[in-house]
């Protein structure tokens, strides 16, 4: 199963296309644009068709449902705020899975890492004196989240590097272990009676976006999205501009060649999964420091798994991940908006359809383009 990983991501564009001074023929540019744009369009089309069928099955009009979905997500500031909030967590888990894939590893443990990060942020916040300014509290919380997620990610990395234990299994198992451990922490030490969450943090935290613009009023969107976007930028820079990223990707693409080049493959795996875990952990601040200001059991549910989808649809590219996160967040929020007309369960199915259509159309479009190129 080592190929869960290695094949999961083939680098499409050899590093840093932007810096090439190669004279790129306009035909290539056009093809590259087609290759980037067509699959999502096909996926959208297919999911609309499937969506129509599901909507018609409950006797509603697809047009009305889609309009409602758009209105409830991008059509108003509050809905959009909710989309942004959901995007934020998905960016993190998506980036986390991406880093793993780039190193040829499949991190299925983002959910546990996310939860651990959230818990750490909460613990840091609770440990700080009441009223600590956000300027101090937030960076400390961020560090805590990174460290906790990284620690959870480190374990499968070390297990893989030193004992060859396959990360797909160990990350799945660690999910259960970490969630159980966090549940014990909450129930044995931090619980607020009759709830599933820790006491609220009274140190400074991240402001909601409604501080910036009133229109977001009441939505959960908060300042952590800026931190996550920075994380995406830094990750892109790291992967494609630095020596560390160069080595990490080499290990992911061809571990034997990397080893031959003097790169310590095991250490790179550990580094990649630790980084992956840290990124997932960072996602915890969205809920804990930005939204509810406490750790609540179950806040991470599903975000790890959807993060895999985000990474895959985003082609493990930080920019792609951000866009994919936005898309999946829109679907998720859209489900709530259309609930009155169609069971929201429809969007669960549509998520699968989108990914499937996307996965199938990417190679197909590439094949058709190659065919067309040959005809000329």
């Amino acid at each position, binding site marked *: 199963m080592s190929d869960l990983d290695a094949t999961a991501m083939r680098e499409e564009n050899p590093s840093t296309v932007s810096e090439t001074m190669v004279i790129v023929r306009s035909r290539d540019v056009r093809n590259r644009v087609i290759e980037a744009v067509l699959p999502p369009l096909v996926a959208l089309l297919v999911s609309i068709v499937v969506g129509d069928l599901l909507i018609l099955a409950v006797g509603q009009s697809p047009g009305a449902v889609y309009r409602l979905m758009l209105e409830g997500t991008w059509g108003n500031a509050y809905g959009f705020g909710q989309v942004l909030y959901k995007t934020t967590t998905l960016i993190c888990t998506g980036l986390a899975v991406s880093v793993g894939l780039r190193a040829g590893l499949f991190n299925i443990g983002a959910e546990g890492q996310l939860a651990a990060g959230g818990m750490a942020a909460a613990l840091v916040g609770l440990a700080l004196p009441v009223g600590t300014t956000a300027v101090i509290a937030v960076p400390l919380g961020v560090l805590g989240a990174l460290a906790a997620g990284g620690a959870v990610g480190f374990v499968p990395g070390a297990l893989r590097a030193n004992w060859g234990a396959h990360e797909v299994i160990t990350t799945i198992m660690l999910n259960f272990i970490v969630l159980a451990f966090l549940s014990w922490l909450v129930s044995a030490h931090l619980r607020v009676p009759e709830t599933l969450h820790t006491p609220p943090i009274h140190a400074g935290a991240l402001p909601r976006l409604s501080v910036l613009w009133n229109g977001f009023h009441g939505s959960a969107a908060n300042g952590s999205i800026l931190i996550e976007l920075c994380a995406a930028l830094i990750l892109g820079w790291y992967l494609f501009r630095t020596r560390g990223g160069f080595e990490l990707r080499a290990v992911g693409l061809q571990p034997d060649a990397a080893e031959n080049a003097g790169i310590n493959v095991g250490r790179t795996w550990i580094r990649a999964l630790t980084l992956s875990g840290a990124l997932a952990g960072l996602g915890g601040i969205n809920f804990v420091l930005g939204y509810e200001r406490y750790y609540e*059991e179950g806040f991470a549910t599903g975000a790890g798994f959807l993060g895999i989808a985000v990474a895959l649809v985003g082609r493990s590219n930080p920019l792609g991940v951000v866009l994919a996160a936005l898309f999946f967040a829109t679907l998720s929020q859209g489900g709530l908006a259309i609930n009155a007309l169609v069971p929201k369960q429809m969007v669960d199915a549509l998520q699968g359809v989108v990914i499937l259509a996307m996965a199938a159309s990417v190679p197909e479009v590439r094949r058709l383009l190659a065919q067309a190129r040959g005809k000329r």
Partner: protein
Amino acid sequence: HPAPAAIAATTGGLDVGIVFDVGGRGDKSFNDGAYRGGERAEQALGARVHFIEPGEGSDREAGLRLLAAEHMQLVMGVGFIFTDDLTALAKEYPDTRFAGVDYALALDSAGKVIPPPPNLAALKFREEQGSFLVGALAALVGKSKKLGFVGGMDIPLIHKFEAGYRAGVMYVCPDCTVIAQYAGVTPEAFRNPGRGKELALSQYQSGVNVIFHASGSTGLGVFEAARQMDRLAIGVDADQYAEAPGHVLTSMVKGVDAVVLDQIRRARDGSFHGGVQEYGLAEHGVGYIYDEHNRALIPDSVHARVEEIRAGIIAGRIVVPAVR
């Protein structure tokens, strides 16, 4: 302002919004109870009830907010998980009535209860009282010194059921033991009937004759085990007799439907008021089922004894613990 995404604009009449807990409609438990309450309000009071099923965490607040912005006469959240969202929204919309089923009371640093906002009714059920009764009933009927309990997620709310049940068993049978097991530590634990069945089978095989479950859909596996082993199980929240006729000794029912209907009526009559409202045995908020279906399973003497205990609890002669 939040958008009027899903709810048609309303003019006049009685509009009520209800947001479900994760299990959603069809959980054969308290979400269904709330739904029934809403339906009865539609029939009896002519109310228009809007239901929302949220997805993940932030959807809960979003759902409540959607309803509050629509100027519903009453906005309800079903489940303790809504506590903080309701508190925040009630402060933000002081003119809207809110109600929280299973609302969890927060304590201040001195350990005193922080009262909910005045426009928020905190509806609490004394599950431990009902659990106490079914515990006593189980011990009296069980013909075994071992009694079983299957919980869903291992959390304080479910511990309350366990504590009452355990105390009830011990009250009538001091040398009995209670085997208490939980299906898991994640929300999945409320919908893993396969696990529930195995837990119950192993309890039955170790000599338990009656199992009380408080585990959502997981409990459906407990009923399957009771059928298979020809033993008894006790339902929770709603009358679950139909899940395994002949094998459901009784159910510890929470009157969610009655309470929901009651709150909607108060909203219409103008008698709605915020604050903590507890529904125990005395208020008929909790209870146990004794009807034509299970009468054959419960000897008259036992029924009389349980009724006696019930009177004792209502009168305050018996104090039921709410924690393990």
